[in-house]
């Protein structure tokens, strides 16, 4: 995962703009990736996942892109809304790891009205 630190990377966007949150994962053997959203004071909430045999997956207003060559994952949020303000985490794992997720540091998304 990403380097450990006390200061989260932050992304500030205007309401209605598209947001792109990036994540570098560490293990080339990982074959399953998940994005989580964590609002202040709450537990993480599943957004979208992608398997390593795919390079793109779309959900409702969200798209995840996977580039295995450079071990990079991104989350795109279309028409960002104030309710999207949260910390976003990517997580990596392998199907043979029994659900053991490795989380990245997280990115704080702030949406300006």
């Amino acid at each position, binding site marked *: 995962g990403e380097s450990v*630190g006390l200061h989260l990377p932050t992304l500030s966007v205007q309401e209605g703009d598209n947001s792109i949150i990036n994540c570098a994962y560490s293990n080339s053997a990982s074959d399953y990736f998940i994005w989580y959203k964590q609002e202040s*004071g709450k*537990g993480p909430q599943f957004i979208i*996942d992608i398997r390593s045999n795919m390079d793109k997956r779309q959900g409702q207003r969200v798209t995840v892109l996977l580039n295995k060559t450079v071990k990079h994952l991104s989350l795109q949020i279309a028409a960002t809304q104030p309710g999207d303000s949260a910390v976003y985490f990517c997580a990596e794992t392998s199907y043979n790891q029994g*659900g*053991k*997720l490795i*989380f990245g*540091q997280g990115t704080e998304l702030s949406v300006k009205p």
Partner: protein
Amino acid sequence: NAGVTQTPKFRVLKTGQSMTLLCAQDMNHEYMYWYRQDPGMGLRLIHYSVGEGTTAKGEVPDGYNVSRLKKQNFLLGLESAAPSQTSVYFCASSYGWGSASYNEQFFGPGTRLTVL
């Protein structure tokens, strides 16, 4: 459905005290997990369970013990708390795991633990 619930929500301990955190889920999930989250960091897996009566170590298991006596409950114990265990603890559960399974992990609201 209540989903995943955690008890207590907050706790303050003195160094050397013990306590147990309780996680309960009402979704009939097989897999359950305990994570800790420190400021500015992602979650790290402490222990997990793939079914009733089973437990396994995660990324940071030292200083913690777990038990899964009932399918719906997963207990996390601290036998002798240390200041380094000050953190927010999250429990999660999933239906199963694997390429042919439904893998979403559902998280509880967290327990904020301070060890003085």
